[in-house]
């Protein structure tokens, strides 16, 4: 305990000394969060300063080993660091798929050479990653994917189409699932492979969503060549790697349920709904929903904590990520719906006059949130996984 409080002092001092003033209090501004990369400019130059200052100390990826650009912190120390960053309402120095998904996956399943090639570039924000899993005919039934990879000497030649590739238009590399054997049970013929997006034959088209934004793309592969040493894990053993990565993805998506740096629901309700003579939210139905949301978030946060304590104590990670993905996203969506109810007609703005920037942002985040229960495996798929792998219910 005393070790942690010493570490907290150290972390606080470092954050105070290195966080750019401009970013303080901007945690809820999506433009302040940096994923790095060769193509995507930093929207605020301060985000770059913050990332590089952190990367110099290994703190952009605090739990990774030092040899790969991390600081080798324990989970508890990293949590303390993030609390100290959160205390000033700062964005984390680095975010994105490299940090949250392919990085942890390479640490688990990559060879030393693969880690050495890719991890330091993620840590310094030099390379941005995207994910090539879903296909037009392989959504919830992911294992039926058809994009093919055929060996040709020291290369694989890839043909096919991926969809819902988040940020493909801004990414430098893609980690993807390809079919390397069409003649076996569908899960057994899949390989996990890394491809440079600058390779000839890669084409990206953004998809416009109901929120007006285009965070996702269609990505086409025409005779794209990638070296065989970019295969992660075994050839035809990609499903195992894919599931491990989905675990990281679900935990990361599910994390949104905790509320974190988001606007405080009770404050928002007091502002828009008003307060009664006793200082309470002046609408019993809204007050009840706010309370329920806050209590659910508290219970969910405790459960994530308990799970983490279990890992620390040596418990094996199981299919809990499905529980977190399901509950975290459903909770976040309920929160977004509630924020609409709280703002009422002021939540209807699309652009232009008559609406505050936060209100316009609200419309978009609500629409964006509707994907939470679809991406990374739908809520229904998560419930299926729990029923099968945790409860042992028959197929």
């Amino acid at each position, binding site marked *: 305990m005393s070790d942690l409080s010493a570490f907290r002092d150290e972390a606080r001092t470092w954050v105070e000394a290195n966080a750019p003033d401009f970013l303080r209090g901007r945690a809820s501004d999506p433009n302040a969060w940096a994923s790095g990369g060769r193509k995507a400019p930093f929207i605020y130059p301060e985000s770059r300063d913050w990332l590089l200052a952190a990367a110099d100390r290994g703190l952009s990826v605090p739990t990774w080993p030092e040899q790969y650009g991390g600081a080798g912190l324990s989970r508890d120390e990293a949590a303390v660091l993030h609390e100290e960053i959160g205390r000033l309402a700062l964005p984390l120095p680095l975010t994105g798929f490299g940090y949250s998904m392919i990085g942890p996956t390479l640490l688990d399943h990559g060879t030393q050479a693969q880690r050495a090639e890719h991890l330091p570039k993620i840590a310094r924000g030099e390379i941005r990653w995207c994910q090539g899993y879903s296909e037009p005919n392989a959504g919830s039934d992911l294992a039926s994917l058809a994009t093919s990879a055929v060996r040709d000497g020291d290369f694989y030649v890839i043909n096919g189409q991926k969809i819902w590739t988040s940020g493909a238009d801004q990414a430098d590399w893609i980690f993807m699932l390809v079919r390397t054997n069409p003649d076996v049970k569908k899960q057994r013929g899949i390989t996990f492979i890394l491809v440079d997006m600058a390779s000839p034959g890669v084409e990206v088209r953004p998809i416009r969503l109901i929120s007006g934004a285009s965070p996702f793309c269609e990505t086409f592969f025409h005779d794209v060549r990638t070296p065989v040493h970019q295969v992660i894990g075994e050839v035809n053993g990609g499903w195992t790697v894919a599931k491990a990565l989905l675990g990281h993805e679900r935990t990361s998506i599910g994390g949104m349920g905790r509320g974190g740096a988001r606007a405080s629901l*009770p404050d928002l*309700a007091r502002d828009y709904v008003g307060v009664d003579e006793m*200082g*309470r*939210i002046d609408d019993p139905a809204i*007050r*009840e929903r*706010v*309370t*329920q949301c*806050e*209590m*659910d978030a*508290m*219970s*969910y946060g*405790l*459960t994530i*904590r*308990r799970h983490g*304590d*279990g890992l*620390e*104590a040596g*418990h094996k990670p199981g299919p809990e990520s499905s*529980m977190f993905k*399901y*509950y975290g996203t459903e909770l976040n969506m309920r929160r977004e719906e509630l924020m609409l109810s709280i703002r009422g007609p002021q939540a209807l703005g699309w652009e232009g006059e008559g609406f505050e920037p936060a209100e316009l942002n609200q419309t978009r985040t609500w629409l964006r949130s509707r994907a939470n229960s679809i991406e990374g495996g739908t809520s*229904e798929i*998560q*419930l*299926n996984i*729990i*029923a099968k792998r*945790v*409860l*042992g*219910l*028959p*197929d």
Partner: protein
Amino acid sequence: MASLVLTAPQNLLARTAAELVSKHGGVDRQRRLRDEGAELGFSPEVWAEMADLGWLGIPFAEEHGGLGMGMAETVLITEAMGRGLAPEPFVSAVVFAGGLLADAGDAEQRAAWLPPLIDGEERLAPALLEAGSRYGLDRVETRAQANGDGWSISGEKVQVVGGVGADGFLIAARTEASDDGLTLFLVPAAADGLEVVAQHRVDSRNSAIVRLSDVQVAAGAVLGDVGGGLEPLGRAVDRATVAICGEMLGLMTESFERTIEYLRSRSQFGVLIGTFQALKHRAAKMFIEIELSRSTVMAAARALDEGSDDTELQVSNAKARCSDALILVTNEALQMHGGIGMTDEHDIGLFMKRARALEFAFGDAAFHRQRFARLRGF
């Protein structure tokens, strides 16, 4: 907050508790006691064995003759009792009444009541609820009038858990000088003018009406300060609430596991009903609710043990969550069992009946959401 993972000694305690409950017949014992119309509603020999194991002294400091363990351990006992529907009045007599006495009582009162309570020789019962109380601790009409050096108490308490056969009662009353406060009294069951009448509740547990007509007690019967009862009472209620949450966790886990087993063994239309997605998804949602409930109970128990600033929030969060989850799980358990679940012969009904008593103990989910909102200033 301490780790939300059980330590090795805690795991051992949980296992021992489970073994004790099943050794004495598990749910069958509750059924047998009910069918026999047993006056006590529980088994004195099990109570004695719990005393031998030291469990009746779990929450008390070693200086009072207890084991000096905390709520983190107490909820392991109540969870095991919940799983097997063990009807011994552990929460009411030990956690609540004993805890209140240890907290608010003076040296003489503790010396008089705690050792026999811990040894299993004498039992205390908290007598708080009145017909009009609902969940308000201060909704009390029982009155205590100063009478010479002592007091004269009159009123009627209902649903006094463990009241039948209790040796003493903790009674909350109003005094003239304390219209805004409550005074707690320790009253021996043998006192003149005190009458105990058995009540019959849906869960078949020991429950009584305690009528007091001009019951005379000495000045030394006051627990703590005259008019100052509400505060220690609130603390005791919070501890008892979390102990109850442990029992709820046991009930929901057991009824859920029995239901999953049924889904894996019952066939209709030529297939196991556990293959139906309509049931799978509901089962998975129940699993999540139970996992969340477990986290809240462990956190609330640790908050009480550590005296955290957010203890009351954690307690209300746990009770609200467990109440909602337990009602969901027991109702779904019955539905998924179908017609057989409606029969008295099947155990699910016993779980469902006990669940309602636990839901309403110390405030239901709505009550605790309101309390949470009030504490957070919503």
